């Protein structure tokens, strides 16, 4: 049975929804930090003129798409962490011993992680509207959603790939600190990457998140250094590649 079972994807998704809903502190925790960043950085840098940001664009406007991307990365990577928790609590064995194909399990994880991270990303967007952020039209909103989905699925894939290579959560924490944090700062969330020295800019160009953030910014405030279609193609390419890699590693992984 190497096919894909929709019922199994549904129950994996449902489990994610129930546990997400029941862990209210987690929801609050993952939304609050980005909100503080958005509110305080947005307020503090409100009048600042940063090179690379058009003068017509306020810092809050510039920052909002980036913070949405950042929130989604954290919640998406969390999917990888939840695999490690399942391993610790033994539930991974229960999942892995079922006749459901490994691709189905990965898809269940992706749909679950995607739903929670979209919920959080859209929460940030909704709150930013209250802070004075403006969305210009329905077309832009749709493109925004497309980029949000791509960012989320990409980093769920990355999370699964990393989790499959690790035995416990400690290693995952290290990777978040030493790999994901630098990627956040080198993705253009807080400032235009054109301002970085060449060496760091190269890293930024290799960072898939750069294209996600640029795509979001293009869609939401029409400011981007690459046309949206290029961002879309690059991010889609990364997304497909990393999900395949994540699936491969997850399948190869031993549950005990």
């Amino acid at each position, binding site marked *: 049975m*190497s096919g894909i079972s929709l019922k199994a994807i549904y*129950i994996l998704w449902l*489990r994610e929804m*129930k546990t997400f809903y*029941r862990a209210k502190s987690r929801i609050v925790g993952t939304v609050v930090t980005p909100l503080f960043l958005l509110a305080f950085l947005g307020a503090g840098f409100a009048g600042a003129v940063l090179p690379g940001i058009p003068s017509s664009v306020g810092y809050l406007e510039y920052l909002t798409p980036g913070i949405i991307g950042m929130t989604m990365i954290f919640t998406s990577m969390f999917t990888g962490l939840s695999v490690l928790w399942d391993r610790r609590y*033994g539930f991974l*064995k*229960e999942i892995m011993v079922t*006749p459901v194909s490994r691709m189905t399990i990965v898809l269940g994880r992706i749909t679950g992680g995607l739903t929670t991270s979209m919920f959080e990303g859209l929460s940030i967007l909704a709150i930013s509207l209250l802070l004075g952020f403006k969305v210009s039209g329905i077309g832009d909103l749709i493109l925004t959603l497309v980029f949000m989905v791509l960012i989320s699925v990409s980093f769920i894939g990355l999370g699964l790939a990393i989790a499959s290579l690790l035995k416990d959560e400690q290693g995952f924490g290290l990777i978040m600190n030493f790999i994901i944090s630098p990627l956040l700062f080198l993705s253009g969330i807080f400032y235009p990457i054109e301002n970085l020295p060449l060496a760091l800019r190269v890293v930024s160009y290799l960072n898939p998140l750069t294209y996600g953030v640029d795509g979001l910014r293009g869609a939401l405030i029409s400011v981007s250094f690459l046309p949206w279609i290029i961002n879309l193609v690059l991010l889609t390419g990364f997304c497909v590649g990393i999900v395949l890699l994540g699936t491969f590693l997850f399948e190869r992984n031993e549950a*005990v």
Partner: protein
Amino acid sequence: MDYAIKVVDLTKKFKNLTAVDHISFEVESGELFGLLGPNGAGKTTTINMLCTLLKPTSGYAEVAGYDVAKKKDMVRNSIGIVFQETALDERLTGRENLDFHSIMYNIPTEIRHKRIDEVLDLVELKDKANVLVEKYSGGMKRRLEIARGLIHRPKVLFLDEPSLGLDAQTRRNIWEYIKKLNEEDVTIILTTHYMEEADYLCDRVAIVDHGRIVAIDTPVNLKDALGGDVLTLEISESTDTKLEEQFETMDWVVGVDVRNGAMELRVRNADRHLPEVFKAAEKMGVTITSVHLRKPTLEDVYLKYTGRKIREQEAGQSGLGGASESEEGN
């Protein structure tokens, strides 16, 4: 012969530890087969390889006719397992855990509800079904897991220490259910370090020690191979070698041993020959002050093959009546 499980030279090495060391055995379809041994003997590792969770280092294993290394999906489709350690999502309720399992095993909705109620009844968790598992006691979690393993009625069911940490009453119920399932043609492989469990339930038992199978047969044959019942006599003159010689001439006496002022006879059908024992003693003028007759247990079998008592290794573990959870070291 139709085999549910076929294992040839199966080996699993972890870094510098050989957990399972070239074991070979077969389990016939419909059999209730036991792996008996102390914690750390390699039972769980064997089960994990058979249910596709661990890759064997070398050797071959087949479950329900499918190679566990090459036909994982087919194996998974044919088996069920109750893990030794808790494998529940504690953030879900009992019923939600069972629902999750049923849907992953593609059980149709109408059968699902019926089966879930049935197994919840069996383990007496019906009134706790909608409580989050994190609120359950250790024994309740165990019962829920057993209930879960029974829902999808697999061809081959693995039970890794099914009654660990259960109270006597629940254990009895579970045993009866295991027997009933087995009668319905489910092949069952269980691991246990409870002699009584292996003896009561299993058609055949493999005694596992240090990753190897040291003996494999029916519980009756294993016990018979020891040479019959153990008859201990306390006698007035403990050094009476004449009586000893007398006993040795009798064909139903398998062995005689004198230790600590008592004579220990290995006797076939001791119940039947007890009068003759007294007669012989009387004739020799020896007075028997006390008689103790004991049927051999699997404990004696284990002792014979490994030189140790299984219980000695379980010091600190929960005993048969204990309801506390205990963790295995492997």
